[in-house]
């Protein structure tokens, strides 16, 4: 194997591993999805039981969703940094 071929091979492997790492980083969104699903289900049940409290429940739901979603966004930022930086 000539040095040039080895170089191309290494570059290809590095690129492939980059994509793999970005994909693996996005596994972190699993928890956020579960959390948002639970939040939505809980909020809808609460609204169904007490429709008068819909406003307050929605505000709290959106806030909590923002917290749950933040984790997924961290995973996304990590994946993007792997893909587009360096």
């Amino acid at each position, binding site marked *: 194997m000539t040095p040039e071929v080895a170089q191309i091979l290494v570059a290809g492997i590095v690129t492939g591993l980059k994509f793999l790492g970005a994909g693996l980083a996005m596994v972190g969104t699993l928890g956020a999805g579960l959390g948002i699903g639970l939040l939505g289900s809980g909020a809808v049940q609460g609204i169904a039981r007490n429709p008068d409290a819909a406003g307050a429940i929605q505000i709290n739901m*959106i806030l909590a969703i923002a917290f749950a979603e*933040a984790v997924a966004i961290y995973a*996304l930022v990590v994946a993007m940094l792997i893909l587009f930086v360096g």
Partner: protein
Amino acid sequence: METAQPTKRRFGFHRWLIVALIVVSVFAVRAYAPIRPHVQVAPEAVLGPFKVPLLGEMYLTNTMISLLLVDLILLVLALAVRRAVKKGAPVLTGIAGLIETVIEALYNLAESTAGKSTRRIFPWMATIILVVLVANWSKLLPGVESIGWLHEAHGDVEGYPARELFRVGEVSVSAIELSGSEPASHSEGALYTVAPWVRGLPTDLNFTLALALISVVMTQVIGLTTAGPGYLGKFFNFGRFARMWTRKDLGPFEAIFPFLDIFVGILELVAEFAKIISFSFRLFGNLFAGAVLMVIVGTLVPVFLPSGVLLFELFVGLIQALVFGMLTLVFMSMATQLHGGGQEQEHGGAH
């Protein structure tokens, strides 16, 4: 549906306009196929470098231009409202009426959470919501992220050939185009990438970090001025630790809780810094992902789907602006209400 509405508006103007735009977009895509631009986290420099004393070399980046644009839009809106109010009309109409509705809704939202201290918290929250909303939505304007300087592509940046459209004096106006279906190679002619003049403001981490710093620092300031120096007791909770040494008969729990207090204080301190990170990365991540999504969908299915993505981005922009403002509101109102709760806890501990 029935007799209430006149039937002559059934074939309205707008739907035909939209159909015509879809047809035009098909031809536009045939003429200039969308390319995949180089995705870059750092904002591109438009002008520069300028020599600035003390700071060194500075660049005018495209997100700075975007910030000026957002400021301009907000100023124009503010002046419009001011003119309408000065006219003394009993009911505001047009843009001023819209702004009044928005501000009223935001104020009611703030009042339901913050209570007494609404007047102090509301300006911060409303300003953040308006700035972030205008910044998010200005990203969707046509021409943003697609008009700019042509740079020759080098390194591993993927470039595309450019064709000159017309000349204005010395300046050549060109369009980047996809040459056929084969991938662009470095063999024929120079290859170019676009450094846009205006880029979506929240896709720059500097902007979101600055907003997050303003939000978190002002939360501390509001907490300090409302609750006094006692606000710092949230972070440096040495009260029971100091009292522990004067006690003669220490139970096992009375010896543990003071240390727990100190530990909880440290956690609160860390949480404040975590807030800065989560604030800034939430907005940045959402909007940057939106920009990348728009680009990728635009290259894969350039005809109809980008409209759907634009609609989704409109929604995401609104939600993210609301989330940023509402989190600021909740943290600030928690900082103002801390005083009462903390005192109660201290009383309970002294018993």
